[in-house]
């Protein structure tokens, strides 16, 4: 089992959920988080029309950028599929597209039935 932690733009969450749902991974945990990295402004994320040239010249001084953190548990053979799907949906080419981390999970237990291991996450 692997845990996939993806930190993505808040306005991409709906499409990401939809795509993962069609691929057969409806279960996930989403959290509102704040992040900092190379992105320093959210001018590229507002819904109104913005002059495209401004996206490049505007550096910004925001200390933290609001992000969504998705956590989902998948079995080992599905990791590359899910990672590829998340990357394809979220790639815009601008700074701030986010990061994906894959880390090992030793045990998972479904509380309702007491099942453990791979059975608990499918």
């Amino acid at each position, binding site marked *: 089992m692997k845990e996939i*932690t993806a930190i*993505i733009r808040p306005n991409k969450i709906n499409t990401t959920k939809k795509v993962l749902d069609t691929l057969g991974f409806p279960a996930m945990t989403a*959290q509102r988080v*704040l992040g*900092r990295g190379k992105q320093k402004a959210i001018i590229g994320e507002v819904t109104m029309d913005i002059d495209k040239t401004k996206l490049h010249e505007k550096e910004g001084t925001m200390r933290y950028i609001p992000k969504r953190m998705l956590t989902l548990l998948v079995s080992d053979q599905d990791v590359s599929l899910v990672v590829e799907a998340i990357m394809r949906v979220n790639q815009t*080419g601008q700074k701030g597209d986010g990061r994906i*981390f894959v880390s090992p999970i030793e045990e998972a237990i479904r509380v309702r039935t007491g099942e453990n291991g791979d059975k608990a996450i499918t």
Partner: protein
Amino acid sequence: MKMIRAIVRPDKAEEVVDALAESGYVALTKLDVIGRGKQKGIQVDEIYYDELPKVMLMLVSESENTSGIIQIINDTAFTGNFGDGKVFVSPVDEAYTVRTRSKGL
């Protein structure tokens, strides 16, 4: 690669973030969390607080840098009282940057 999750006092969080940025660890994620520790919360006069607000800082780094990062967090978040927080380190197999679709940090 390792993921470092540090649970620190909310009023110390910015100090820790600044100290990490000075040493070159700029990228991190910040979460507001609620927790309690060995002291089962805190008693202030007649009011008993079962759960206390904390800030969780999450960052992923190369394995050889972890001890340095933990040292920075320990130095800046320290007050000597109960409730200074904890630091957890867990393994990360792979990391991807979405913008470039490249592997690695």
